[in-house]
């Protein structure tokens, strides 16, 4: 059975999936379908967003005043650490002439200096433990937690004028890549190219790149390219595409909203 033909069933599964109560084999089957069908993935995203509203609706409880004091202390410790790092990193750059001018050596020295400084700061903070014994450990634990902070990812499902999904677009901020997957059967002629456009709230469309013929495509893009862009579109252009300034010259085949997923 093709789940995309049964909107009510799809909605029910997507709601359970995003709520978290769809488990085991049913969850794995849903995930497999989502990878295959962009509409399934889109339905899951809609429900993830809806359920996230629950976090806003809980009864208020005042925390103890000590919590703010701890936050404030850690923020100040972090600011101090950064200021010290910046000050010490500036030092090796003042070394005079000779082989010091060699860029590679300079870079290596700067890196070594930075590492030494970091070690010094960490040791310094720990030695300073008489005042605040746990700060060093807290900073380390904090840095670990920040590493684990959810990656912000953008997803768009681009559909044609009959609302059939044709292209799944995701943005991978780690590798600065837009990944496009063709999900419909559309294939442009050999003398044409598909071109991806960002549709910002103000100003004309901005080109994000020209697509090759493969099923899975990657374009280089920075987060600035997709930030605050509410929608993406794909137009049919002459082979190789058109310059960004001219805007799309051919018909817009697919478009869709750019959604940010947070988990």
């Amino acid at each position, binding site marked *: 059975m093709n789940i995309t033909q049964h909107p009510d069933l799809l*909605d*029910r599964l997507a*709601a*359970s999936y995003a*709520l*978290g*109560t769809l*488990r085991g084999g049913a969850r794995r089957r849903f995930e497999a379908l989502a990878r295959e069908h962009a509409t399934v993935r889109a339905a899951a995203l809609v429900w993830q*967003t*809806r*359920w*996230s*509203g*629950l*976090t*806003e*609706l*809980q*009864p*208020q*409880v*005042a*925390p*103890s005043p*000590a*919590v*703010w004091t*701890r*936050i*404030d202390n*850690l*923020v*100040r410790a*972090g*600011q101090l650490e950064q200021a010290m790092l910046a000050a010490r990193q500036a030092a090796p750059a003042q070394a005079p002439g000779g082989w010091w001018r060699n860029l590679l050596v300079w870079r290596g020295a700067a890196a070594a200096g930075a590492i030494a400084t970091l070690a010094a700061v960490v040791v310094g903070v720990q030695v300073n433990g008489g005042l605040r014994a746990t700060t060093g450990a807290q900073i380390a634990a*904090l840095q670990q*937690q*920040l590493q*684990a*902070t*959810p990656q*912000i990812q953008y997803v768009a499902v681009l559909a044609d004028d009959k609302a059939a999904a044709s292209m799944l677009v995701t943005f991978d901020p780690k590798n600065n890549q837009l990944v496009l997957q063709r999900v419909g059967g559309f294939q442009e002629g050999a003398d044409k190219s598909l071109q991806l456009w960002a549709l910002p709230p103000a100003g004309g469309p901005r080109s994000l790149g020209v697509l090759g013929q493969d099923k899975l495509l990657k374009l280089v893009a920075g*987060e600035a390219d*997709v*930030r*605050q862009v*509410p929608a993406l579109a794909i137009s049919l252009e002459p082979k190789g595409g058109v310059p960004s300034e001219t805007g799309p010259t051919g018909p817009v085949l697919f478009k869709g909203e*750019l*959604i*940010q997923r*947070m*988990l």
Partner: protein
Amino acid sequence: MSTLHPDSELMDLLDRIAAQDDAALKRLYERTSSQLFGLALRIVRNRDAAEDVLQEAFLTIWRSAGSYRASLSPPMAWMGLIVRSRALDALRKRTTDRADLMNELDDAMAQTLEGDAPNPMDAADASEQAFALHHCLGKLDHKQREVVSLAYLRDQSHGELAEQLKLPLGTVKTWIRRGLEQLRACMARYA
């Protein structure tokens, strides 16, 4: 919706925090800590653990406010997800660390189902999206609303909920299924 939407105040604060303005962080904390602490407490059920979660969440906000605008989310929803994510980490850690504590906590949990408040949820600062959910949850009966909320907030399965709420598995499944059906019908009108 009032003329000065609370969202715009919170978004301004997040912008200032992104520029490392610590006075803005203090103001944001004053405006939202009770709401976010309530959320953390609901998930981890223990004041000390919830305070740690709140602390970690605000430090995360301090470090990553620069990415808030790109999230296209209402500010409370963005912060709520940070708190939930930290709280779930804490919950998992605590469950493995101290399984013996859980029985005591389960009793406290079971009590949350005893009352029958019409809708204890607080929507004062809620985004429009959460407001729709608030409205639709308000139409469920208390028990259905509780199990659905807890399933999401604590990321728990039917089995885990049944165990903690001391209810038969079939009962939990039925409440969730009926709650979901009603919610889906109601939310569809806001689509």
